[in-house]
């Protein structure tokens, strides 16, 4: 078996055996349960309200808007959970193994150091993919079963959310190759926070038509394009009206261009290459 696959498999098993995934799943399932119960009561309420006051055509229109809103809220929450999972998985991986010396018997085998990074990356990517699939599957099917609603461009949206998770994981891996675990966690959450604030400045700037604020937002997206990926994902899945109204944390008013998506992919590739380079030069 190829060294990358052996190490990907090891990474995968480690996450499961060390119960990080279990913790993530426990949190995720709690979220899905609460979300589904909440959604259940909101939908009942909503139907009664609309039936009492409005015409059938308008009722349907409002229904879709509300369902989309709750769908996006759910997906936003699981994006955050997936990102937290990506950061937690990645922060300790290299830093911890370098610190404990576990890495020494691995690296002194007939493998390349790049194999170690690529193996870990692949293992985490698989794990995060499954996690996202499970969580998004939960939100989407909860909505589908309870209301019959499916968002437009769902797969595009989920793909972008996955890309965002992978981006955060790769940045974490890169930091973990140079810094201790705790510092890595701090840096990654700090960057995520920066992107979040930057995204909001851009949104507000777009609503009030302030080009400087929009530029600040774009600049932070260039520093770390994670939030931009979420907004692109939201744009793909949201109803046209939500995009125009905009004043919801789960909607995108200032829509990142496709160029930004390509930029994010390049960013990820560069971060991965840098992780390899840093790890290759590091004394273990």
């Amino acid at each position, binding site marked *: 078996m190829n060294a990358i696959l052996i190490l990907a498999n090891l990474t995968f*098993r480690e996450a499961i055996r060390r119960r990080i995934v279990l913790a993530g799943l426990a949190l995720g399932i709690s979220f899905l349960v609460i979300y589904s119960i909440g959604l259940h009561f909101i939908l009942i309420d909503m139907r009664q309200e609309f039936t009492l006051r409005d015409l059938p055509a308008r009722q349907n229109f409002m229904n879709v808007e509300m369902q989309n809103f709750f769908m996006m809220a759910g997906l936003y929450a699981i994006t955050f959970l997936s990102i937290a999972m990506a950061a937690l998985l990645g922060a300790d991986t290299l830093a911890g193994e370098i610190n404990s010396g*576990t890495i020494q*018997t691995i690296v002194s085998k007939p493998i390349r150091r790049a194999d170690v990074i690529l193996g870990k990356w692949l293992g985490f990517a698989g794990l995060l993919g499954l996690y996202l699939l499970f969580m998004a599957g939960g939100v989407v099917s909860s909505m589908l079963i309870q209301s019959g609603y499916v968002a437009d461009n769902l797969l595009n949206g989920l793909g972008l959310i996955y890309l965002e998770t992978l981006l955060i994981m790769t940045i974490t891996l890169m930091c973990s190759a140079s810094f201790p675990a705790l510092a890595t966690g701090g840096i990654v959450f700090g960057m995520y926070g920066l992107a979040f604030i930057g995204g909001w400045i851009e949104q507000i700037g777009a609503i009030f038509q302030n080009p400087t604020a929009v530029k600040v937002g774009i600049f932070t997206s260039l520093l770390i394009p994670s939030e931009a990926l979420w907004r692109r994902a939201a744009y793909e899945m949201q109803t046209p009206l939500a995009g125009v109204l905009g004043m919801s944390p789960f909607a995108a008013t200032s829509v990142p261009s496709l160029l930004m998506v390509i930029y994010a992919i390049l960013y990820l590739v560069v971060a991965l290459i840098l992780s390899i380079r840093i790890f290759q030069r590091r004394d*273990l």
Partner: protein
Amino acid sequence: MSVAAIETEQLRKVFGDRAAVKGLTLQVAQGEVFGFLGPNGAGKTTSIKMLLGLISPSSGTASLLGKPIGDRDAMSRIGFLPEHFRFQEWLTAREFLTLHGQLLRMKADDLASRMDELLERVGLADYRNKLLRTFSKGMLQRVGLAQALLNRPALIFLDEPTSGLDPVGRRLVRDVIREVRAQGTAVFLNSHLLSEIEVTCDRVAFIRHGEVVRVLELAVLSTDETSLSIRVSNFPAEALSGLSQWGKDIQMDGEHIRMVIQSDAVLPEITRYLVTQKGEVYAITPNRMSLEDIFIETVGKDGGL
């Protein structure tokens, strides 16, 4: 077979403004058990890590089994037990060995039989499906040793292999070293336990401040002068002079006789002589000039600090 197992030329590592290894030049032949001795901080572990490609040298060259450092073909014929061994503790002993065997590109059936053989050899056969998390320090050291032997290496690095082990475990390591040596494996042994080195190694290098200050053939030790202590009771003082035909510096202090002999070969004759005299003989103990004596003489009492 003429290539050296290890060959280094002025290998040097500088951390900041401190040279951890100043210029390591040494040769280890194939099939040789080579001891690497030195006080704490002399650069022993750094040297091993450079040879294994874990740390990149600041300057100098080295080759293992005739290949430059980091060569993957050479690495597949090398075994390594690190000093502060920490392994994937969420794996079972068998899973752990499987992982390392796979990374060594071993074939599945060979790996399976080799793994069972080694677990048996290091006394962990009953623990093969237990998680490493539940292992004691000594058991981890044993499974680490099995890991280092998986690929029937031509060269094996053991960095303080007996540090966590009880006397039984130490003997195991010693026996394993003898076995692999008999199979032609070169062993690079870094240890603080001089008595271990003394009984297992063919040659030792003394390291101080990251330089080889002395290389010693250990076979020499056994022919060196030996001080002999004899414990007797009611031994007639006049019989003492009879011992001078086998040695010198004969002294008697109560029940203890001390003398210096040239070789262990005279021991049977001395024993025969003693028992034919009046008085009782309780012990005859040769104390060779130990490696410890040489160590302190070479690196200094301050430990090279």
